[in-house]
């Protein structure tokens, strides 16, 4: 379903990804771990289509289509979702209106009927209950004044309502206390399904207690340098990335 081959990407003049290979099949949850500066966030931005990241070599194929040719909104329509490490504050736009615009945009893209206001409210409330999100949060401007935990729960809510087939979670655990981590982790786990692949990008193992991965990769200096099962993450937690950093250097 997602097939990345020999991916090279640079930001400005600096090459960050240096020949990355990765294949994720439908329904699988993969974790990418690695030291700071390894290229974890760059990978998530390249996959979601952010400007300023130039692919110089390699291919990314998603459900048989060339992902790299698509505008960000088209990728979303095709089922790619990025949960941001730092969700962006949008003053003056209520969370509810934002969610409705997003959901109706992807529904339109997918040839499904758009929700009216009443149906949408019902649809959203089913999801907010699970994530412990109150109506007051939906009325507030997108991410404005949200706590770290609220921001990440809002990201998972967006993921739930947009129903992606490929979810990229970029450092979703950053800035979360233990309780928030549990709510977010359980929220994400509830969204696992045979049709939905996930790529969980994280520096620490602790998120993976809640979102248990099928495959764990180590990313260092722009390449996948090791791959294993969930036990690899536990090892990394114990021993750190020192070995990989040296290997890469």
């Amino acid at each position, binding site marked *: 379903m997602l097939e990345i081959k020999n991916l090279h990407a640079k930001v400005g003049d600096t090459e960050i990804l240096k020949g990355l290979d990765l294949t994720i099949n439908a329904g699988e949850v993969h974790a990418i771990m690695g030291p700071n500066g390894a290229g974890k966030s760059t990978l998530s931005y390249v996959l979601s289509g952010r400007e300023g990241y130039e692919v110089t070599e390699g291919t990314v194929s998603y459900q048989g289509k060339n992902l790299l040719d698509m505008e*960000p909104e088209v990728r979303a329509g095709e089922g790619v979702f990025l949960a941001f490490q730092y969700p962006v504050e949008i003053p003056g736009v209520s969370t509810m209106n934002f969610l409705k615009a997003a959901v109706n945009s992807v529904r339109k893209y997918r040839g499904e009927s758009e929700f009216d206001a009443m149906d949408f409210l019902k649809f959203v409330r089913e999801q907010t209950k699970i994530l412990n999100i109150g109506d007051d949060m939906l009325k507030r401007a997108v991410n404005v004044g949200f706590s770290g935990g609220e921001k990440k729960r809002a990201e998972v809510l967006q993921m739930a309502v947009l129903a992606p087939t490929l979810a990229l979670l970029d450092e979703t655990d950053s800035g979360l206390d233990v309780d928030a981590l549990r709510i977010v982790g359980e929220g994400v786990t509830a969204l696992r399904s045979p049709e939905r692949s996930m790529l969980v990008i994280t520096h620490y193992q602790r998120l993976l207690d809640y979102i248990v991965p099928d495959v764990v990769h180590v990313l260092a200096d722009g390449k996948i340098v090791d791959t294993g099962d969930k036990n690899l993450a536990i090892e990394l937690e114990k021993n750190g990335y020192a070995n990989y950093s040296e290997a890469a250097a």
Partner: protein
Amino acid sequence: MSNLSPISQAFVDQQGAVAFSASAPWLDQLRKAGLESFSADGLPTPKLEDWKYTNLNVLEKIDAGQRGDAAIDSTQLTWLPTELATHKLVFVNGRFQSELSAIGDLPKGVKVLALSEALASEPGLVEEHLGQIGGFEKAPVLALNTAFIEDGYVVMVDKAELATPIEIVFVSQAKNEAAHHPRNLIVAKNNARVTILERHIGIGEGGYLANSAFEVLVEDGAHVQHYRLLEDSADGINLSSVKAKLGKDATYDSFVLSMSGQLSRNEIHVSCEAGGAHTNLNGVYVGRGDQHIDNTTLIDHVVPNTSSKETYKGALDGKSRGVFQGAIIVADGADGTDGRMSNKTLLLSDDAEIDAKPQLEIYADDVQCAHGFTAGELDENSLFYLRSRGIPEAIARSMLVEGFLDEVVEEGVAEDYQDIFKTRIADWMNSG
């Protein structure tokens, strides 16, 4: 007099030729004082510090001698939901139109009428207030208005609360290229509460000058909400001068949405003259083409323990130009003053321009004053965030601009009336 520019001289000549409908010694004297003040220097030029960024030579295209007729189609005047349209006054080219207006029933303590009528029915009350706040030294545009005082609206509220807003529509009928000078009076006393929703529109093709002035007196716990929508036609020129004086625990809320016309200059001067006085000055301006939009404000904190909060935001496209001049003056001894001012502009094209000039003059020790000014493009990070959620780029841009501007509406307009302005902003975005 011989030094006046032709257009200034034309205004002076015209004033001498007008047969004003109302006359009284004090009123004639007031007009005369306005005329003399205006005649000394004529229209302001960019040589004056306050007029550095706004040039009124566009007025050369206006025929000052014309006074338009008043045939109008009433269907063009509807803009409020019916439940809000309960006290309506319509003015065409500055003159009250009773057949288009419906003032309705008013509670005790509330007077709403045209100035032309008030001058006939309540001359003493008008004399007591008119021209009292509007000192026009260094204010040539207000002096010009004063020279032509004839009609406008009068709202006086004493110990009363008006549940529904007073609706005012000023129509400029462009085909006559006329100049008109509505003069308006708002007086609220003794915990009175009143909301005025005002719309300025231009109908027909061609230029005109709508030069309105407002004297606002708010005293003893009274609260005035004064919301204005400026929708002039493409060649229309809208000048307005607000002079507000606030007494003890009085609040004056002003919101202005400037969205069309060739040139507008909206000048507001609020003087907080007793403890507990508070003013909220808010505004949104949107421009495209070669529109010019000037918002100039001055807040005087004269005595201790008064406060002001001011936010103006704009979005400028095409070759449009915005001007924001915001001054806060805290007098010697006015301790406990809290004054906050902010101006933010989104520049949607490379050719759009904003000239922002903050001015804080603080002569007291114990005050809190802050100002912030920004101008820039849409935030790429925000744009990417929305697009990554499937929202197409054009819609994402509109959402961001509207959200940016709607914030001021939410801050500056009571909840019941926010949609009136938000809808206008959305329409402006969609028409671009």
